């Protein structure tokens, strides 16, 4: 089976087997890209051959995404050379990249939610004024057969499950006959089942002779999928493990080598992180201090049959029963957009519950305002840092006191006491390790990690008792992630935490127990331990028709 519109040479079986002799499809030589204050890519050389998956591994900020943006024509390098089939080229626009046969699946979806699958695929693929819907439908069928998936061309992109959306994105990247597929962090939003399916699809494409660059920061993915593995660190190429090395080294040995490459000398400290391990989820559980032997305190937060309306495309919740005890960290797992926000906001008071009862320290709080709940010790760490977390144009100090406006001793007689605020803000910045020139710095100029630390400082201080963490480490670098998870674990010391996250590894690492949210309902509860990930994955999909069934029947 061959991808539609491919030349006959692609059917050559020799081309399907990766070997050192096969000429590279795309080759980068000495690529350097500088942004103001950052050397994002420093003299990087890299190549990818037909019929191989080349994993590109590195932490957030290592320069992976910049390199990808250069290949797909979003950015142009300051120096260095790109060769396609041995010919030097200049990729100065996404169009040029597509014309050269480089298709990209970006980390953030480029599907247009309001358009149908077919319209999304036809976008930019015009040869004439009229859209060729019939031709596109036939082509989609060919791709469906090749990938082993079945997509409804008339469905609106917004109505598809995330795994399915990604399949459409892959088809879109290959639509104009690409020979190189770039996948940027493709698994970050998927359920374990959808990840499996992605592996299957990539396997089929590889057998068909496609070259793939697989960008990830998850080691076990890079190792299990890559024929070759390259590691970036702080904008530099640390090295490439070639096919022979990858093939002959046992996985756990390989993992050690790669961790060493990613973190250098600091590797030893970081090897405890579950996320980095090969299939590390189960092992991480052992590290969790939680155990059935621990005695739980009083219930601090109780939800009895709570319902809350959805807003726009964001669904509501119904019939949610949940108890969080003193000294307990409860995780809420689920695919994004299954009512996480409604749950968090119903508890925090930002959204009025339409049914049921929310109790804090045993007393109902349904009628209490956000402010009154906050005074009782309830805090909500939002997932929308920039939107509702901070006010970008205000100083760090003022952002730390946003929720205490008017309260003594920081305000007196209606006017702000700047000195009192700055002094306390400096303490907090010290305590939470906020890296900034000073407390006067505008909060909007901070990096994502420091911004999150400012929010944590605000929410965890001033007598917090019950804290809702919503995607607490989303988009943060590894060091900050570790720090944040440590803070969550410390909540066990006399406080209580509800951690809403789409990162299953994270939940397994920090939670005492995990409830699963699907379509606005809690569909089950799982204790972290061997096999928990699979069990949660199964609950997460529930009755949501994911693409798995379609893939198997077509295969």
């Amino acid at each position: 089976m061959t991808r539609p519109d491919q030349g006959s040479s692609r059917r050559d079986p020799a081309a399907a087997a990766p070997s050192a002799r096969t000429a590279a499809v795309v080759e980068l030589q000495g690529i350097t890209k500088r942004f103001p204050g950052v050397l994002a890519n420093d003299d990087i050389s890299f190549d990818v051959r037909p019929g191989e998956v080349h994993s590109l591994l590195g932490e957030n900020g290592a320069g992976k995404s910049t390199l990808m943006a250069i290949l797909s024509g979003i950015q142009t390098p300051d120096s260095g050379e790109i060769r396609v089939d041995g010919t030097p080229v200049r990729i100065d626009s996404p169009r040029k990249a597509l014309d050269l046969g480089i298709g990209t699946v970006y980390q953030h979806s480029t599907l247009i939610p309001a358009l149908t699958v077919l319209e999304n695929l036809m976008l930019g693929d015009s040869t004439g004024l009229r859209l060729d819907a019939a031709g596109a439908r036939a082509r989609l069928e060919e791709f469906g057969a090749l990938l082993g998936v079945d997509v409804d061309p008339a469905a609106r992109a917004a109505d598809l499950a995330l795994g399915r959306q990604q399949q459409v994105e892959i088809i879109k990247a290959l639509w104009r006959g690409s020979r190189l597929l770039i996948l940027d962090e493709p698994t970050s939003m998927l359920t374990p089942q959808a990840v499996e399916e992605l592996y299957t699809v990539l396997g089929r494409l590889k057998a068909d002779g496609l070259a793939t660059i697989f960008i990830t920061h998850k080691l076990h993915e890079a190792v299990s999928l890559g024929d070759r593995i390259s590691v970036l660190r702080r904008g530099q190429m640390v090295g490439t493990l070639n096919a022979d090395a990858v093939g002959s080294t046992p996985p756990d040995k390989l993992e050690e080598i790669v961790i060493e490459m990613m973190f250098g000398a600091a590797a030893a400290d970081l090897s405890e992180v579950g996320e980095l391990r090969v299939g590390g989820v189960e092992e991480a559980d052992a590290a969790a201090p939680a155990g059935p032997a621990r005695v739980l305190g009083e219930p601090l937060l109780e939800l009895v049959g709570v319902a809350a309306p959805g807003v726009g495309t964001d669904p509501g919740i119904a019939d949610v029963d949940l108890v969080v005890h003193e000294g307990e960290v409860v995780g809420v797992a689920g695919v994004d957009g299954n009512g996480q926000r409604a749950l968090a906001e119903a508890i925090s008071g930002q959204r009025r519950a339409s049914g049921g009862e929310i109790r804090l320290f045993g007393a109902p709080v349904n009628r209490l305002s956000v402010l009154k709940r906050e005074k009782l010790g309830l805090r909500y760490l939002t997932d929308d840092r920039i939107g509702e977390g901070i006010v970008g144009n205000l100083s760090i100090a003022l952002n730390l006191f946003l929720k205490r406006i008017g309260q003594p001793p920081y305000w007196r007689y209606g006017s702000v006491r700047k000195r009192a605020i700055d002094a306390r803000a400096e303490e907090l910045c010290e305590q939470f390790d906020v890296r900034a020139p000073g407390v006067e710095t505008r909060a909007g100029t901070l990096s994502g990690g420091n911004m999150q630390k400012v929010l944590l400082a605000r929410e965890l201080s001033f007598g917090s008792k019950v804290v809702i963490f919503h995607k607490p480490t989303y988009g943060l670098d590894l060091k900050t992630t570790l720090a944040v998870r440590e803070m969550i674990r410390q909540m066990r010391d006399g406080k209580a935490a509800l951690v809403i996250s789409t990162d299953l590894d994270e939940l397994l690492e920090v939670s005492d127990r995990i409830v699963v949210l699907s379509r606005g309902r809690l569909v089950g509860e799982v204790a972290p331990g061997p096999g928990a990930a699979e069990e949660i994955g199964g609950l997460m999909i529930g009755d949501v028709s994911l693409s798995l069934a379609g893939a198997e029947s077509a295969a």
Partner: protein
Amino acid sequence: MTNLFHQDVLTALISGGVIAGIPLLLAACGESISERSGVLNLGLEGMMIIGAYTGFVAAYYLHSTWLGFLGGAGGGVLACTVMIVLCVWLGLDQIVVGIAITLAGEGITSVLQGAQFGTTYPRLGATPTTSIPLLHKIPVIGPGLFEQNLLVYLGIIFAVFLTWFFRSTSVGLNLRAAGEKPEALDAAGVSVAATRSWAVLSTGALAGLGGGFLAIVGAGVFTPFMTQGQGYMAIVICMLGRGKPIWVALASLLFGISLSITTALQLAGIEISTDLINMLPFIAVMVALVLFGRRSYLPPALALPYIRGAR
């Protein structure tokens, strides 16, 4: 007092409604093109008044209705190039630039009118009409709907064409993508700036054409500030019609009727202060917004400049 439902009164109401509705229809269809592509064109009012002036001048000196229309469209195109350069290419705030174009358009045309004609307001002759055989003989609605300037029919046909254009052509798909998610259009290899530029350009041409029609066919004269907020009304119509051209066209004609009610009432001999009646269209706008405002649909990327790679 003559009966309000007298045949002549109704005929005048419908005929006047169509003539007053066509400028709205053209401008609102234009606005729907640019809004679909993600450009909120608040300069519509300015483009209309500039089109009204250039259209009137062209028709007056060249003694041709059609050259007048062409002049109107040309004036609108000229005015919207400012918006293209500042908003689409340089990424400035669309609301500020739009208001500036409107204010500048009103001012410039008043000054030019004064310099050209002083305090006289020369009138154009009656414009030619095209009768549709048989249909124009239908009582009451016949003369109003089927005995009009050719541009009336073309305008209505254009609204139908636009529906097809958005749905079934590649350019229409590009336009929608530019307004929904410009980065996706860019990633698909189509220039967002070019797509939006063409969109705004056609908006300018249509608004100018509408203004030209207003001066040449509707009034037969150019007076300063003669558009009287019709550009803004067209923006509201476009919003209420959810950018769907057929709905936009229907709403335009309804608003046209509310604009022409003054004449009809005078014809019927009903004595109400004209100031009161002149408020009608604006009250209609507010009522429509209260009733249907929630149903309006605006593209997610509306009024957001697009710069590649910016996050």
